[in-house]
């Protein structure tokens, strides 16, 4: 037996231990990783403030990192760890961590049910926000409540339903058009950006024409020079030219929505205001439904139609298949110079610029047949004058190389070499030099591996409005859209935090005028604190308040209506169907869905209230039991705010019924109303069960 065992052992190869060794190495790696993460807390005894966010745009992580370093320098016993996550998993990750009570101390607010999560998992910051920020002790805000040091007074951080402030914002955001200034000037021969919609469309047409011309040339060339059999051999020069890819505007669904709300505002803000029955300036969903039932609002409304048609007209200049790409891909296309314009927010500005600056500078022509050239005119002259094989020396971002080019017949650089040259300075005061800015595919230059310039200057401009004399849209133009100054990039503190004091302190540190300016300088975003100035580049994003607000949209009636409008909208925007078909689809489906939404409105107004009574009970308890006068006075104020919410919710149903009662009685004779009541009658007959269905 022992002999048998021994023989088995002798047959065990040392190779069998490799698996164990790999496992050990991995285990040690994991231990090291955990040590790196936990060392500050467990071994150095530091207080670790963990912060998570979904801002993966370039610069943001560095900005938070810099704030962390500055904070750690001021407080050596503390450490700041940021956890950046992709927005695709952010909501789920945060939810899991909150439920498991393992969440970071500070969480960026978003991608979850905000009101529900704030009340369950976050600490109200009202008390702290009412006191001055201690880090402002040496500036003009030393006696100013922390909340009043923000540009918007942190209005959107206040949650009326919860009667408290829950977050602190670091930045402001706004939306604009981004432009590839180099291509814009090259193709349109001008530097000023379009000020009117007509001019914008004219620019788009010219860009499309240019792209078409280039592609026609490519097709003609390919037809005249069919590929030979050896062209298919790998590494052999290609003779077939690739299609030229350039679109006036790059977009995805995300960008379409930016256009949609902006132009809908410009053309229908007055309809929105007139639909408001309570006269606060913001119509409730029931007000829109009232307008539809009464026949005052309709899908056939010429203003609503014009607003949608503008976006559809703009979408004609998008790349085909824009519906299936995401916003990051659309942005990447712009960065790569495949489109002249794109719309996005200030949050993308730094990403775009950093990515553009990381693109190739373009090969610089140093000499032609040994004769140095100092600018594009000299280089072009020398290249055109040369006959036979030409020896050209290039500089590719410090790397110098020489290529022998055999020019084709022709009178221009493009015909002979397939290149375009222009003068650019490599920066830092260096003189202009002859830079290759375009290379035609399968040309002499392309086959020689010459690389064109991909960097460009970015221009920012506002959405161009239709001019008054625009035949299709001019008469419907109401005015510009007023932009908001709401702070974003909001962070809240979780209730399970062991470092509450430190977490508040870190937020206070990041929101002094100087630190907030620094944070946003690195992130290339707009600061949210008074006295902090945006960088010169971001001045173009500073919100303008002149204009109107809101737009007519039937999505607002309720969730089911929103789905129907969305289902009809995308085929329409992608040119699959025209406006008549879009309107017909909505007329057929919207009334029935609106009936469901109406009953849901009534049900929701009943359901919202009980939780508010929980809040009221807390404030009432403090009014009765608190011994400190300050706590009692504060509780009384909050109780009043809470009652305002309760009455608002509880009486909302009565308000809806007060509005709708005359219509429910009279049943107006119009297509929408008839279709609505057909479904409403069947549902209200079935009561709550009908609604549930």
């Amino acid at each position, binding site marked *: 037996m022992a002999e048998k065992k021994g023989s088995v052992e002798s047959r065990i190869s040392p190779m069998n231990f490799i698996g164990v060794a790999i496992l050990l190495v991995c285990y040690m790696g994991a231990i090291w990783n955990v040590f790196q993460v936990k060392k500050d807390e467990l071994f150095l005894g530091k207080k670790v403030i963990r912060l998570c966010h979904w801002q993966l745009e370039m610069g943001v992580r560095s900005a938070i990192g810099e704030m962390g370093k500055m904070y750690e320098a001021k407080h050596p016993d503390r450490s700041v760890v940021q956890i950046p996550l992709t927005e695709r998993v952010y909501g789920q990750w945060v939810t899991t961590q909150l439920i498991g009570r393992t969440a970071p101390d500070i969480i960026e607010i978003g991608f979850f049910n905000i009101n529900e999560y704030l*009340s*369950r*998992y976050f600490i109200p910051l009202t008390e702290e926000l009412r006191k001055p920020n201690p880090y402002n002790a040496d500036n003009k805000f030393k006696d100013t409540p922390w909340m009043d040091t923000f*540009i*918007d*007074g942190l*209005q959107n951080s*206040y949650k*009326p339903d919860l*009667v408290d402030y829950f977050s602190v914002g670091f930045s402001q955001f706004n939306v604009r058009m981004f432009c590839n200034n180099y291509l814009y000037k090259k193709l349109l021969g001008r530097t000023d950006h379009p000020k009117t919609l007509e001019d914008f469309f004219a620019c788009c047409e010219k860009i499309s024409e240019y792209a078409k011309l280039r592609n026609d040339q490519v097709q003609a060339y390919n037809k005249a020079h069919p590929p030979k059999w050896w062209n298919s051999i790998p590494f052999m020069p290609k003779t077939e030219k690739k299609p030229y890819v350039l679109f006036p505007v790059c977009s995805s669904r995300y960008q379409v929505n930016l256009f949609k709300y902006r132009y809908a505002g410009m053309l229908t803000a007055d309809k929105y*205001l007139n639909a408001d029955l*309570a*006269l*606060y*300036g913001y119509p409730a969903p029931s007000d829109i439904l009232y307008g539809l039932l009464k026949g005052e609002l309709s899908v056939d409304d010429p203003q609503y139609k014009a607003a949608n048609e503008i976006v559809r007209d703009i979408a004609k200049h998008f790349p085909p298949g824009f519906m299936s790409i995401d916003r990051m891909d659309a942005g990447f296309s712009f960065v790569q110079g495949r489109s002249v314009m794109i719309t996005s927010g200030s949050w993308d500005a730094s990403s775009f610029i950093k990515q553009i600056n990381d693109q190739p500078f373009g090969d610089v022509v140093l000499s032609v047949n040994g004769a140095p050239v100092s600018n594009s005119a000299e280089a072009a002259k020398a290249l055109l004058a040369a006959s036979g094989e030409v020896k050209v020396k290039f500089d590719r971002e410090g790397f110098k190389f020489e290529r022998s080019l055999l020019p084709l017949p022709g009178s221009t650089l493009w015909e002979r070499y397939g290149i375009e040259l222009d003068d650019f300075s490599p920066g830092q005061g260096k003189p202009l030099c002859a830079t290759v800015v375009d290379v035609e595919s399968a040309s002499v230059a392309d086959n020689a591996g010459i690389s064109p310039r991909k960097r460009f200057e970015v221009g920012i401009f506002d959405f161009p409005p239709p001019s008054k004399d625009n035949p299709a849209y001019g008469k419907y133009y109401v005015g510009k859209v*007023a*932009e*908001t*100054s709401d702070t974003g990039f909001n962070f809240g503190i979780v*209730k399970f935090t062991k470092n509450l004091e430190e977490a508040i302190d870190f937020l206070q540190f990041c929101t002094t005028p100087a630190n907030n300016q620094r944070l946003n300088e690195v992130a290339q975003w707009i600061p949210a604190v008074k006295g902090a100035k945006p960088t010169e580049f971001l001045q173009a994003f500073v919100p303008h*308040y*002149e*204009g*109107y*607000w809101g737009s007519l949209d039937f999505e607002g009636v309720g969730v089911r209506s929103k789905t129907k409008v969305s289902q009809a909208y995308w085929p329409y925007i992608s040119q699959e169907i025209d406006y008549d078909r879009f309107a017909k689809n909505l007329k057929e489906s919207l009334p029935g869905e609106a009936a469901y939404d109406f009953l849901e409105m009534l049900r929701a107004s*009943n*359901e919202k209230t*009980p*939780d508010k*009574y*929980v809040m*009221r*009970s*807390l404030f*009432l*308890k403090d*009014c*009765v*039991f608190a011994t400190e006068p300050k706590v009692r*006075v504060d509780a*009384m*104020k909050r*109780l*009043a*705010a809470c*009652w*305002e919410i*309760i*009455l608002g919710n*509880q*009486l909302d149903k*009565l*308000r809806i*019924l*007060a509005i709708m*009662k005359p219509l429910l009685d009279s049943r107006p004779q119009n297509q929408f109303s008839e279709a609505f009541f057909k479904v409403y009658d069947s549902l209200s007959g079935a009561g709550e069960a009908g609604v549930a269905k």
Partner: protein
Amino acid sequence: MKRIKSSLALSLLALCLLAQPVCDAAGASADKLKDAWREYQYREFDTAQSLFVEAEKSAASKEERLQALTGQAFCSQFGRRALATVSDFEAASKIYRKCVELSAGDSRFEPFFKAMLAECAARIYSLNDDKAKLKEAMDIWDWLQANCKDSIVAQDALLFKTALLTKSYDDDANIPLMQVLEQRLSGMTGKSDGSSEKDSLSSVMASYLANTYYWRGDYKSSVVWLKRYIDFGPTSYSARTNAYFKVARVSEAKLDDRKTAFEYYNFFSENFPTDRRNYFAGQRAAEYGALLKEAK
């Protein structure tokens, strides 16, 4: 120096040793209550309920006991929110009755527990249309108005009653409810900072009146109460901006009162620069300003 007797020294020592756990117990029960209310705030009602029960057992004073009992009653009364049944309110009522007994004659606590009893009775009435329960609630509400109408508890109860009994805006049954509120607010000037108990819920009452008048079509009275609401002090920045905007819009659209419209649009334009409605308000103010100048 006079020597103290050994028996006295021993007694003092015993007292000190006994006092320590008593102080600890007082601190522990206060902490338990704090924990319980925190869990209640986070809607962890089961945990809160058990902590309140523990806090009641270890209560170091009558006040703490009452607070612990209140917490238990709140968990029954509010914890199940929309799913609350008659038995939940009955369970809460039972605790409140006990609290009323414990706090009899105490002007700080007795009205509160009575108001809560009335609220539970009113809830039972609205769930199973029990008229006797409504009568019970009404009697308590009358008692509150007669005995401590300026207390926060009585004002809160008045609002609860108003909200519960408002069945529709155009119902004439609302008129007595509105009259009670108007009467209560008639002598008040507003302009307080909300720290006075007497008018702490006045702004909410004024808001209720402004809304009710508006939806009943009495726009003039609605504007009157909106102005009073502004005087009493809206509870948030957005409520304040909305109130100013609404006074201007109603005066313009429903009453053709250009002077008021000008005044409130102008105030809005000058005082709420970051509001999206600011430009519109400024334009309207300029328009009405010019018209008023012409009329002069």
